[in-house]
């Protein structure tokens, strides 16, 4: 009986699931990226042609897409941290304890709307007949509408909207764990509030920033929806390039190679930030 105890086998179903439906598909994709289409049939030929295509094909469109993706993602991550940190700080230290949870939940409520709808709803705000243009026209501040959709600005705005909420959650979770006595001790030792923040609160809250920023990076760089809806197709990001290969061309080998490059970038980001990531803390 002892060997059948849940303690000894409970982890196996989840591991099997992850192995079968996560690890194997990734291996299948890796093999696919080393295959080529010969007369419409996909054959594993252990070729690097798809990776070469990534570097050279279509005047560097794919490399360009990768650079666009990294730029947009970095900009998004930095801006989201800048928007979220003060918000999390105010929630943690300015709102009375018993109201904090409620205010936090209300603040990040739109976090739970679906990705498609959240991006789409920004079109109602930004487009030429959206509410910003209409308001400015009515106030006489504009003589003709300015389209703000279909641009990198719109993509970054849509991203920052979502990820500022995510970062508010992770930074807040970190801030409330910092013992008040640390800040009191700093004050007793003669630090003013700015010095206390700079030398005590900020360094102690960096793990929350790191976890949130890492999640932002991973989710933003792999996202197809926001750039497709808000950015349009004027400039491609890497996930849009992947979907183009999948959809119109049905070129699975090339799409797989592009995806492997995307994964490589995320892995690099993970290794660079691994030192600061303590997932368990948040």
């Amino acid at each position: 009986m002892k060997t059948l105890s849940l303690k000894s086998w409970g982890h196996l179903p989840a591991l099997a699931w992850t192995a079968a439906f996560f690890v194997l598909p990734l291996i299948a994709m890796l093999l696919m990226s080393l295959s080529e289409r010969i007369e419409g049939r996909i054959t594993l030929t252990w070729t690097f042609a798809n990776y070469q295509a990534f570097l050279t094909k279509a005047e560097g469109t794919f490399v360009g897409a990768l650079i666009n993706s990294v730029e947009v993602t970095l900009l998004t991550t930095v801006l989201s941290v800048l928007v979220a940190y003060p918000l999390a700080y105010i929630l943690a230290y300015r709102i009375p304890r018993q109201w904090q949870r409620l205010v936090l939940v209300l603040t990040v409520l739109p976090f739970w709307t679906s990705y498609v709808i959240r991006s789409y709803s920004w079109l109602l705000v930004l487009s030429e007949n959206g509410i910003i243009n209409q308001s400015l026209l009515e106030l006489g501040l504009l003589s003709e509408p300015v389209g703000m959709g279909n641009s990198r600005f719109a993509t970054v705005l849509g991203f920052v909207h979502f990820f500022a909420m995510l970062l508010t959650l992770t930074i807040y979770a970190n801030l409330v764990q910092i013992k008040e006595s640390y800040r009191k001790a700093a004050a007793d030792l003669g630090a003013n509030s700015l010095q206390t923040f700079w030398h005590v609160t900020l360094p102690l809250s960096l793990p929350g920033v790191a976890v949130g920023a890492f999640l932002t990076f991973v989710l933003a760089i792999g996202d197809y929806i926001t750039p497709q809806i808000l950015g349009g197709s004027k400039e491609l990001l890497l996930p849009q390039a992947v979907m183009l290969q999948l959809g119109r061309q049905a070129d699975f080998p090339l799409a797989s190679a592009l995806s492997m490059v995307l994964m490589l970038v995320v892995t690099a980001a993970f290794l660079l930030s691994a030192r600061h990531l303590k997932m368990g803390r948040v």
Partner: protein
Amino acid sequence: MVGRFASWAYLGIALLFIFLPVLVLIQFSFQGGMAPVPPFDGPSLRWWAKVMANRKITDGLWNSLLVGLGSAFMATVLGFLAAYAMARKRRRLSGLYQFLLMAPITVSYLIIGMGLQIFFNHLGIGKSLWVIGIGHVVINLPLTFAILYSQLGEHQANIERAAYDLGASDARVVLEITVPMLWPSLLAAFFIAATLSWDEFVIAFLLSRFDVTLPVVIWSMLRSGLSPELNAAGTLVFGISILAVALVELLLWRARRNRA
């Protein structure tokens, strides 16, 4: 550090930024005319009536609920079993197992979806709601595992030990002590997983052909441009997500109150 006034001002501006698109969406779902954007000439329920009569949307709604609840149930059960086994018994390979279980969180949904598409295609398994559900379990398992693992600490272990000392069997301890003790967290994990699956687009898009989920329906409606009907459909999805979140908060609040 920041003045009181500055704090409230910042909070106000941040909330405006966060809620602006959602409020516009909700308001213009009650639009009277054909235009999805200002000027507002409602309120009217005509677009809501149209959404409710749209078979594609109602079918998508049921498909999404089915996939969401089914995959969340599976993810919660697998996550609980794994969290229990990992928290109650040290293994030589514990570190590796945890790494594997958490790994899907670092991979984009697009890549997970594409991998599954290639994998199932190779096995000759067609696209269906089942396959979407499998994908959603993959993305939610790290979350349910992490949530439940964090709730299986020393405190809970001591209570279980007391039950063992009183002669309870393994199965009885799990069913009558551990599960009831974790009940709020189990439900919270379930609803978080269900909400994420309900909203998920790219995996559902890549792995569906005929039966599609609601985000995919909305995506295809979006291709023919903005419309007040789309606003109403979006508001509906938002409303259902909010209900689930409210439920989770209520459960967590009760759990905290019971512990206190």
